């Protein structure tokens, strides 16, 4: 994740620096206002903590190891703006003195991990944690998910920065001057490692340390918790089930709006049918959507063979017995929604009956 020198063009690095500077300025102002002069030692020590946590190679399921950046944890404890500064400082020290990440790429590394990472972690943490009590398991899950999503978002940003290099910078002979891999390679290559290994390390550290703090010093979680339910330590009372009416209303509105889907021209990429390969207009659409790679002259044999295995009653959301396309779309939508609702009702009743049967059978 720490982008070294030479992987990004100077122009990309300059843009990343320019994008980071306003966030650093805002963060300095906000932190100064919020914490007064205590900020200096706190930010320094949190940066040092982030540096040390990055050195813990965490054993992960499957026999592999990964290290966390601590961005999720820092955000949950000291807030997104202070975390942004602390992790930026840790990244600058790593680049300057420990050869981890390039000097020209400091702006990009800080933007990806410290700035975007902290903001994403904060939004996800607040959304998932909601107004749950500080001691609730939901806060642990929220911290873990925040760390996981933040590190993956950072990785995605880095992958996009890598992926645009060969599109923009090549020498006269066509050799890419910086990172040679296009988006189609850079994104999966980065994301596979982060969705599995690095993301899990971040998840484990964020969730684990928040669980640890719940037992050792819960007041540390109050700063970023927002409004917390008052009955934190009280005996949980019976809570009236929430009304589902707004959900049903929203679902009904979305169903009515589904015919808008007809306005979109062409098929979604990769969702072509065998008949599309014979149609000149659709072939042109496929080529345009595939970076001018023409579709094969003949329909792929496997596609022909497998597509005849099952014929959907509502193929392409247009039942053959309905003339109006909009009505066909609406009917398909209602049928699909109805099936899902019935499926979940059945699952719910099955789960309830299994729960009731549980204690008796034990």
């Amino acid at each position: 994740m720490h982008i070294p020198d030479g992987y990004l063009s100077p122009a990309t690095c300059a843009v990343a620096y320019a994008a980071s500077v306003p966030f650093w300025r805002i963060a300095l102002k906000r932190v100064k206002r919020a914490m007064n002069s205590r900020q200096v030692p706190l930010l320094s020590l949190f940066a040092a903590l982030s540096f040390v946590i990055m050195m813990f190679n965490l054993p992960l399921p499957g026999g592999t190891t990964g290290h966390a950046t601590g961005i999720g944890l820092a955000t949950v404890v000291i807030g997104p703006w202070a975390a942004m500064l602390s992790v930026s400082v840790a990244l600058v020290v790593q680049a300057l003195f420990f050869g981890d990440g390039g000097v020209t790429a400091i702006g990009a590394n800080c933007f990806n991990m410290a700035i975007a990472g902290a903001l994403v972690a904060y939004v996800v943490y607040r959304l998932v944690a909601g107004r749950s009590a500080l001691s609730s398991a939901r806060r642990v899950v929220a911290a873990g998910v925040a760390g996981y999503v933040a590190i993956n978002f950072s990785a995605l940003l880095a992958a996009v920065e890598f992926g645009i290099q060969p599109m923009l910078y090549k020498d006269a002979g066509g050799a890419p001057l910086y990172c040679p891999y296009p988006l189609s390679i850079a994104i999966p290559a980065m994301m596979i490692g982060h969705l599995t290994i690095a993301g899990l390390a971040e998840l484990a550290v964020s969730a684990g340390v928040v669980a640890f703090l719940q037992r050792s010093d819960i007041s540390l979680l109050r700063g970023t918790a927002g409004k917390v339910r008052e009955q934190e330590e009280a005996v949980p009372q019976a809570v009236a089930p929430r009304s589902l009416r707004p959900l049903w209303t929203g679902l009904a509105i979305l169903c009515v709006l589904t015919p808008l889907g007809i306005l979109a021209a062409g098929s979604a990429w990769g969702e072509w049918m065998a008949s599309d390969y014979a149609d000149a207009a659709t072939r042109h659409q496929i080529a345009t959507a595939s970076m001018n790679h023409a579709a094969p002259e003949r329909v792929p044999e496997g596609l022909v063979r497998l597509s005849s295995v099952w014929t959907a009653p509502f193929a392409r959301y247009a039942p053959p017995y309905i003339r109006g396309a909009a009505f066909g779309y609406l009917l398909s939508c209602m049928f699909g929604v109805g099936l899902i609702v019935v499926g979940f009702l059945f699952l719910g009743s099955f789960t309830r009956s299994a729960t009731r049967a549980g204690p008796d059978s034990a």
Partner: protein
Amino acid sequence: MSDFHPNAKGGFIENTLEGLHFALSRALYAESSASRAGVMQRLDPRVKVAGVFAMVITVALVTKLWLIAAVLILAVGMAVVSAIPIGVLASRTWLGAFVFSGMIALPALFLTPGTPLYGLPITVQGVRTASFLVMRAETAATLMLVLAYTTPWTHILKALRIFRVPVVFVVILGMTCRYILLMLETAHEMFESRKSRTVNRMTPAENRRLAIASSGVLLHKTLHMSNEVYMAMQARGFRGEVYILDDFEMQARDWFALGAFASVAAVSILLGR
């Protein structure tokens, strides 16, 4: 961390201890190396920071491999006249950067479209782009190592003021550097004491719990230390304003070195476009 750990094998505690020891030894070596008698050590830190940063940017800008190689040779020359042994360069920079960037660059040999090289499944363009990646990473890492091993770290941070980095940021960076060493030592002691009490191999789940609990304890120590440091700062008269002593003074040799860095960068950029 992308630093190369040649002996990184064994359990979680051993590997973590080794990583912490590696970082500590690098910092301590840099401190002793910066106080040796050498050409770079005698220069004003501002000149070194500006010069080395200019060279790193030059390496990123030029599009000719021989020019990047020339800057690498120059960086090695700077290391040699500054009492940094080639062996240190090789073990602490070249090997790590080569392994890391080499692994990333390797598929580019096969995946980059272009003219096949002598009938092999690799292309001329692939070899060129992989060389760019590895050469740039090696050269920039060498330049930064020369800077970090010939200048006290606090001086490098103070010299960042020439880039208009806010004073408060420079102070935070300086304090971070100091506390990183302290935290590394604390973490090292924690893991060492744990290792001395461990008689059996720990399972991955136990290792995970240990890492998380250690992170939590370090977090507590961090906050505790932060309060203590703040009180100590207040006791010494800190009222929220930060100042740093700008005690650097340019000598004739510094102006000469600055001119040399600027000339090399300008000529390289002109030739390498």
